[in-house]
C-alpha cells in the first residue's frame, strides 16, 4: 500500500485535518525554538569559537525544523497509518530544542546530546523502515518505488540533523585554549571539531543533494532551476570534505563562498517550491491538496541549515591557522 493510497484510506476515519497538522507543526516549531533559546544563555568565550558554535547549532536547528515540517506533512499524507510515524516529527522537534540549547559540561548538558543521539537513532531506524517499505512493493528496488514509496532521504535527513547536532556539540565543548579536560567523551580541539563538522556537513550535503536529485529527476527537471540543488550543494560538499582533509586558506575562501551560495539557495529553493505548489491544480487556494501533492515547501531550507553548519566548520578550521 502506498503512502498516497493509505492517506485516502485513513483520512475518513481520522479527525486530524491538514490544518491541524500545519498548526501543530508551527506550534511545535515555536515551542522548540522557545525552549531551546531559553536554555541558551550567553557565555563569554572566544569569539570565533562562539560564532562557530552558534552557527553550527542554528544550522542544525534549521535542518531539524525542515525535517519536522516535512515529516509532519508527509506522514499526515500517509495517514499516520503506522503509529511509529509520529516519532519522526516528535524527534525532529526534540532535535531543534537540543540544537538551540546551550551545551553545558554538567549533567543538564547531557539532555541535548541525548536528543541528538535520539534523532540519529530514530533517523537510522526510519531509514530501515522506509527501505523495507520500498523493497516489499512489487518491483522491489525500482525507480517507481524509489520515487513514490516511503522516501529514503527523509529519515536520512533526521539522522543527519542528529549527526550535525552531535558534531556541533563537540565543537561547542572543544576547549578554546587547547587544554582538554578529559571529562568529555567528545573533547576534540577546536580545529579537530571543525574538521569533524566539515566532514559531516560535506557528506550530508552530498546525501541531501542526492535526495533532491532523485526527486527532481522524478519531476523531469521540468524547470531548469531544478538543476541548481543537484550541482551547487554537492560541489560545496566536496569542497568541505577537501577542507577537512587538507585545509588551506584559499580553499577555505572558495568553500566559504560556495557555502554562502548554498545558504541562499535554500531560501531561493523555498520560493521556487512555493511557486511549484501554485502550479498544481487549484494553486494555493487549494492548499490542503496542493501543499501535499506539489513540491515540499519545507525541504529546500535544509540546504541553508547545512550551509550554516559548513560555514561554522570553516570558521573553526580557520581558528587552527590562527592558533598555530
Amino acid at each position, binding site marked *: *500500500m502506498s503512502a498516497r493510497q493509505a492517506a485516502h484510506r485513513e483520512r475518513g476515519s481520522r479527525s486530524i485535518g491538514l490544518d491541524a497538522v500545519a498548526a501543530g507543526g508551527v506550534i511545535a516549531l515555536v515551542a522548540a525554538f522557545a525552549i531551546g533559546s531559553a536554555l541558551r544563555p550567553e557565555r563569554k568565550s572566544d569569539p570565533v569559537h562562539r560564532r562557530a558554535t552558534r552557527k553550527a547549532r542554528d544550522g542544525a536547528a534549521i535542518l531539524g525544523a525542515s525535517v519536522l515540517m516535512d515529516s509532519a506533512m508527509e506522514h499526515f499524507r500517509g495517514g499516520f497509518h503506522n503509529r511509529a510515524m509520529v516519532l519522526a516529527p516528535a524527534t525532529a522537534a526534540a532535535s531543534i530544542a537540543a540544537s538551540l540549547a546551550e551545551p553545558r559540561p554538567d549533567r543538564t548538558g547531557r539532555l541535548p546530546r541525548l536528543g541528538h543521539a535520539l534523532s540519529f537513532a530514530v533517523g537510522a531506524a526510519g531509514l530501515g523502515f522506509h527501505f523495507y517499505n520500498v523493497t516489499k512493493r512489487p518491483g522491489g528496488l525500482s525507480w517507481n518505488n524509489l520515487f513514490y514509496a516511503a522516501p529514503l532521504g527523509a529519515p536520512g535527513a533526521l539522522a543527519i540533523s542528529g549527526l550535525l547536532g552531535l558534531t556541533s556539540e563537540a565543537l561547542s565543548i572543544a576547549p578554546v585554549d587547547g587544554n582538554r579536560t578529559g571529562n568529555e567523551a567528545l573533547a576534540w580541539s577546536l580545529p579537530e571539531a571543525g574538521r569533524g563538522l566539515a566532514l559531516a556537513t560535506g557528506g550530508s550535503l552530498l546525501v541531501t543533494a542526492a535526495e533532491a536529485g532523485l526527486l527532481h529527476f522524478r519531476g523531469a527537471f521540468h524547470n531548469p532551476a531544478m538543476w541548481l540543488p543537484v550541482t551547487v550543494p554537492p560541489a560545496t560538499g566536496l569542497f568541505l570534505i577537501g577542507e577537512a582533509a587538507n585545509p588551506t586558506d584559499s580553499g577555505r575562501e572558495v568553500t566559504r563562498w560556495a557555502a554562502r551560495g548554498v545558504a541562499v539557495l535554500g531560501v531561493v529553493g523555498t520560493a521556487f517550491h512555493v511557486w511549484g505548489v501554485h502550479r498544481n491544480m487549484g494553486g494555493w487556494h487549494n492548499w490542503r491538496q496542493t501543499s501535499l501533492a506539489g513540491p515540499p515547501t519545507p525541504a529546500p531550507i535544509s540546504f541553508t541549515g547545512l550551509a550554516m553548519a559548513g560555514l561554522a566548520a570553516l570558521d573553526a578550521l580557520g581558528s587552527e591557522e590562527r592558533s598555530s
Partner: protein
Amino acid sequence: MSGRVSVLDDAAELRPRAVSGRAPDVFSREDCVPMAQFRDEEEVDFAIVGTGCGGGVLAAKLAEAGGSVVAFDAGPFFRPLADFASDEREQEKLYWLEERISDGENPIELGSNNSGRCVGGSTVHFQMVALRFRPEWFQARTKLGYGADWPVDWREMWRYYEEVEKACSISGPIRYPWGPKRGRYPYRAHEVNAAGLVLARGAEALGIDWAPTPLCTLSAPHGKSPPCVYRGMCKIGCSTNAKQSVLVTYIPRALAAGAEIRDLATVGRIETDRWGRATGVAYFREGRWRFQKARHVIVAGYSIETPRLLLNSHSARHPDGLANSSGLVGRHLMVHSNHAVWAEFDEEIRWYKGPPSMACCEHWNYADDDPTKDFDGGYAFMSQGPLPSDFATSIVTNSGEFGMDLRARMAKYNRMAGLKMVGETMPQADNRVTLSEGKDDLGLPRPRVTFGYCDNDKRLYAHALDFMGRMIEAAEGKNRFETEGTAHLMGGCRMGEDPKTSVVNADGRSWDVPNLWVCDGSLMPTGGGVNPSMTILANAARIADRMIAAGRRGEV
C-alpha cells in the same frame, strides 16, 4: 477546492465558439486567444476535416510551416476547466453518438468506446495509454506472415514517436521491458495505483515482465497544465488539463501559428472539378451549408467518418466515391478485442483512483516462440479503473445481472481489480464501412459498420482471457468473471505502395485525386496489439513533414 462554484452550460454545443477572430483559450475558464480567419471564397492551402490525432497534428505543423489552414470539426470547442464535470452522464457530450448502423457477425457497440466528437477528437476522452508499435508490425506480412506491410520503415516511425511523445509530455518508465531500446520519456512514470499493483503482483508471480504504463498525462507541471490529480475522470474528459490531449497540445500550437479552427462545422462533401481534382469542402455551420475553397483537402475524421465522407463525395468522375478506384475505401476496418477478467480482492483497491490503466504488460506482443501462442498478431493488457456507471453497464451487458444481483456486485466495486486486453484483429476486407439508406439530420447518409471476428481473432482473445485469468488468480483475486467488448478503430482507408491494394500512398496522398489526402487512424494497414493514438500521432507528424517537403519541391 478553490471555492469557486461553476455552473455548467451547454453553450459550446449550441453555438460555435471559434468565431470573429477568436478561439477559446483552453487553459482558461472563459478567455479567448486570437485566431486567424479565412473567407469561404479565399482558396486556403489546406482544408482539414477533423481535429483529432491526425487533423490536430497536421493543422499545427502545416500552419507552423507557413501554410494557410482551416480545420473543421463537427463537435464543440470545449474549455475543460469550465465545461467538464465529474459526471459520467454529462460527459457523454464528448462521444460521437449520432446514429450509426452496426451489423455483421459481431456488431461493434458504437459510442463511448470508439470515437469522439469535439475539437481535439477522441483524445479528449481517451484513456491516455501511450504505447508504440512493435517494429516488426510495420512489416507484418513480410516478417510475421499475416496482415499487410506498412509503406513505412519502423525506424522512421520511431523518430516520430519520439517527436509526438515530447509534444505530449508522455510520462513513462525509465526502463521499458519490451522491444528495442527507446530514449527516455519526457516525464517520469506516475505512481502505480493499487489496481496496477495487482497486475504487477500477478506478473511477478507468473515470472513475466510488467511496467508502469507510459501515459499521456503529466507527472509534473508543463506550460499551463498542472500535473495529474489522480481523480480518475480521464475517460470522461480531464477537467484539470493534466491530460495532454490534442485539444491542449496541438490545437493551441495550430492557433498560435495562424490556423483557423471551425467548431460545430460538419463537412458533408468534398467537391471536385471536372478534372477530378478536389476544390474544397461543403460544410454545415450555424444553420446553413457553405463551401470553403481549398488547394488541398485532408480528411482526418477517423475510421468511420473518413470513409463515409469519401464515399458520400461521389461524382460523375468518381461514381463509387472519392479515392475509391481500388474499391478499398471503408474496407479492412479493425478494432481491438477488449475482453477482460475481473476479480474480487480482500483488500480495498479503489481502482478509480488515478488514470485507469497505470500498469501494463506487453509480454504477448513479443513472445513469438512461446509454444502456447496459437495465433497471429499480439495483445497487450492493462490494469483497470472503470468509473461506476461504465462498470455497471459492462456487467449488465455481459452477464445480464440486474436488480439485487447487480447491487451486490457493485457493492464490491472498491475491492475489485481487472485486466483488460488490447487485442490485435486481422484486417479483413469484409469488415467495412458503407453508406446506408437512412439519412441523418443534415441529410447525409448514415454509415453502416459491418464487423466480424475471424478464427485467428477468436483464438487470440481466448488465449488472452485464459492468461489474464491465471494472472489475476496468481494475484489472489477471487470470484473471477469475464467480459467482452471492443475498443478503438483502425483502418478503412489503408495506405500502401500499390494503388490496387491501397487507398493512399505512404504520404497519405490519395492515388486517384492528387490534392486529396487522408491522415488519421483509418490509414493503418494493421492494428497492432497496442492502443493506437501514439501511432496515429506519429504517422501524422511524419506525413506533415512529407507534405512540407513536397511543398518545397513544388509538388504540393
